[in-house]
């Protein structure tokens, strides 16, 4: 069982088929069976991309995102981190300082396996990413019948299903890409990042704090878990 500080409230559990996960308000998923942290859309170097294009956005996001991830690794004693795509933002943002920050962070977590499923933002930077101590995964990863992928594709899912012989549990995907958020009617809370659970897949909120969001339609989901400060609130 995950160890957490006493002042933290009880963790919210998410059960999918035979698997169980914990929804973390730090915008991540913890998978106890694999001792893995799963995050999506880290967008490293996004600030630098903006700065190089002549748009002044202050640094600090990347450092804080990585620190948060470090804290999670320590809290859960996680052995692996799986990134569901968009690990980086744009080739231009992988500037020398960003690269050295990343190298230092990876060195700090040598005992942790970092596996990155390539997302649309990562593809132009594959060459640059190969020099780091991370596992790059071309399209998707299947762990214990759970598909980990950047972008959910319903058609592929159907193909996979028809290929598989076992009927007991249909394939389920964990993915990122869309940065799901909801907006509360008649409130001024702005976009609230959520975990959106559908019939065949679950979408994680973007891990990075410097990410916008795509407003999802709640009625199309099976369940929605919103991140409100240090809490996870089940909205549906």
């Amino acid at each position: 069982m995950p160890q957490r500080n006493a002042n933290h409230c009880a963790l919210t559990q998410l059960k999918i088929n035979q698997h169980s996960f914990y929804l973390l308000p730090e915008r991540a998923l913890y998978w106890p069976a694999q001792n893995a942290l799963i995050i999506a859309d880290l967008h490293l170097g996004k600030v630098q991309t903006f700065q190089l294009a002549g748009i002044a956005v202050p640094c600090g996001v990347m450092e804080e995102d990585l620190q948060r991830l470090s804290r999670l690794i320590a809290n859960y004693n996680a052995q692996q981190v799986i990134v569901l795509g968009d690990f980086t933002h744009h080739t231009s943002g992988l500037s020398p300082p960003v690269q050295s920050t990343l190298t230092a962070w990876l060195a700090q977590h040598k005992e942790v396996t970092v596996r990155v499923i390539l997302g649309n933002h990562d593809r132009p930077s594959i060459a640059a990413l190969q020099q780091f101590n991370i596992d790059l995964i071309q399209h998707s990863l299947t762990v214990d019948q759970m598909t980990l992928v950047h972008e959910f594709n319903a058609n592929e899912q159907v193909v996979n299903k028809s290929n598989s012989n076992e009927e007991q549990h249909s394939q389920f995907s964990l993915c990122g890409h869309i940065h799901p958020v909801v907006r509360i009617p008649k409130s001024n809370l702005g976009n609230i990042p959520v975990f959106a659970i559908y019939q065949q897949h679950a979408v994680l909120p973007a891990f990075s704090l410097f990410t916008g969001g795509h407003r999802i339609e709640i009625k199309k989901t099976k369940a929605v878990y919103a991140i409100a400060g240090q809490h996870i609130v089940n909205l549906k």
Partner: protein
Amino acid sequence: MTAKLNTNPIAKGQLGTPLQRIAQWFKRYGWQPWPYQKKAWQAFKKGQSGLIHVPTGAGKTYAALMGPLMQLMAQAPSKRQQGLKVLVITPLRSLSRDTEKAIQQPIQDMALPITVETRTGDTKQSVRRRQRLALPDILITTPESFSLLLSYANAQELFSQLNCVIVDEWHELVGSKRGLQLELNLSRVKQFNAGFQIWGMSATLADPQAAADVIVGISNNTGEGQPQATVIDAKIKRPINIQTLLPPNMETFPWAGHMGLRMLPSLVAALEINQSTLIFTNTRAQAERWFQEILAAKPEWAGLIALHHGSLDEKNRRFVEDALKSGLIKLVVCTSSLDLGVDFPLVEHVVQIGSPKGVARLMQRAGRAKHRVGETCNITCVPTNALQILEFTAVRHAVEHKKVEAKPSYNNAYDVLAQHIVTCAAGGGFTASDLYTAVTSAYSYQSLTRQQFDWVLELVEHGGSNLKAYPEYHKIEHNQGFYTVKTPRLERLHRMNIGTISSDSQMAVRFAKGKKLGYVEEGFVAKLKRGDRFVFAGRTLELFRVEDDAALVKLSKAKPNVVAKWSGSRMPISESLGAAMRETLNFDSKNTQAKAEFKALAPVFHAQKALSSVPTNNQLLVETCKTREGYHCFLFPFEGRIVHEGLAPLLALRIAKNARTSLSLSVDDYGIELLSKHPFDFEVQFSQELASKALFSQNNLLPDILESINLSNLAKRQFRDIARIAGLTQQNFPGKRHSARQLQTSASLLYDVFQRYDPNNLLVSQAHQETLEQFFELARLARCLTRLGSQQLIINHTERPTPFAFPLIAERVTSTLSNESAAEILKKLATQWDIPA
């Protein structure tokens, strides 16, 4: 367009002095120069600068133009150097066509060898390229195109010959960020060439001297004493006749509502199709709806009536404007899109549907009728709810007593300055101390300290004083103290984003065959499904596909099922109108002009008095009432929605400090509602003298406001514009729209990032300050509290909601003013989550 050049040099004296020739030219049209026009010419001759303050349609253009024109005529063309002599700034592109025509007229008639051209966003590329190298004698342009000219390396050369700048419709620009942009541009040109004169032209303003001082700016020759800007007042009266179209049956007329279609039959009956008429509405949605309904009521008017609002395609709008001018179209339903600009001499009648919102606004609209000197402007006001009738009485009262709104002012707005600094860096470069001197000669930047200036300079140079925060960012750079833009690419990017008008992301609406109808908000299209029908551009359209940048539609015969939405919150009534309403409440009902209105309002007032009372000007009415919803408390300060939006949470906070309770709030233009689900004794709060004093106290005002509202969330809205103007978010990128996807972000996200990682950034504090001052009108709120504190409290417990209270209940807009934390709100919602359909 270029005036025909007369190549024969004109012998001086042969045709008389320039003044004689101008007088002759006036005579040719049977005109006589107005005394104020002659005064303006003399003031120009004396080398003065200032403001010409005249009602619309009284020949302002010639008052300002003839001075510089005579100066040009006095010089032999052979001796004249090539280059710009007179710059005419207009706030609207569409206005520039008419201005050019008016200026060309005397030049062509007298065959003067003077070139006149226009340069706006609509000007052809080839012409603009030529103009960038050499400008005509007289150029008509917008503040934005003026900035663009200043962003080219040869800017100094372009303006070295300038004699005079004429600013048309200055009342539209003063007090806005476009006005600031213009002030800064003028300060930059003064750096190149100190000798030119500035003349503003404006319609009715509360304080013309202040507006004159702003446009003329601060002289840096402090030794010689400050020459005050001249104000030339035409003293021409244009009487405004305000009529209210009263509902035939007051008993059934609604107490709340803003669409006003109940009045359709009365209005249609009052309209005369042979008379050119403008029908003003307050929102685009209202314009669309009224247009449809008028057409349905009078199908025989098809072809004679048209629709005009800011989201319609430009071609379409031009067509309507021209057709109205020529008399082809008789009746136009419009929004503020026709508030100013092109003259429509044929228009005889103006109709205002719904609240006039402000005194100046109504005067401007009324002035659109018979756009001619001395003639009475007729405006018919159509109420959309009962109490609005009172607004019309109030606005008439305010017009009679010349109680026009004062213009807000911005001081040292950093965002506009940041943009200006990059413009100057591109336009020939600068040294910091020279540019600082120039900038502080602009009226609105006179109190800018060198430290503040340096901070903004650092912001564009390397992101701010926090050097570590922006390692990769460099927009401008300096070489031995001389600043220029780093790369041509950044220069191009900057030019594409010059300006201070922010537009929401819009999506074109077009037919499959390609005809564009106009624009709607992207957010609205996102919510549409294929097959949804909505009314736009006067037609019912069905969506069948959304492409990258357009919603493709086809005509539909079925009824619409969704209503097109445009952003823009509802405009509040102004301080002047609020004050006038409070006075009007107690008019003697025998007041002749308002007699009919008071007669119509009699049943409403009767009900109000029977249940509660009608407050006098020095009373504050407080009503308490219990309904199924809970325990209500209504206050009626009549200060307008925005002030009420600040006042309501403030009072709720102060009441909650006295007695813990959770209140939900609602506001409208007239009053405030506090609602408690559980029994709560509001009367005690107000009736105990000490408690009520504390409620309206100025003590702790700012901390209390900051505690009662979520400033960050409101500041985000303001930050959106600031971030764009300062160049933090870009609307336009060179090349294709989606090539810059990696640079797309929202201002609210940027705000969060700034707030967290560079909280001392001046742009963030500017957003907070503007939110408090502009959005909340903090100063007005403070004045309102003082007034409320000194007023006699009338506390009435009522059986049921009164006519005054009813609209507040009917429109309970929001409980967003709550200060619960996100988690609290979400948890509450989770139990009662209402899945939106």
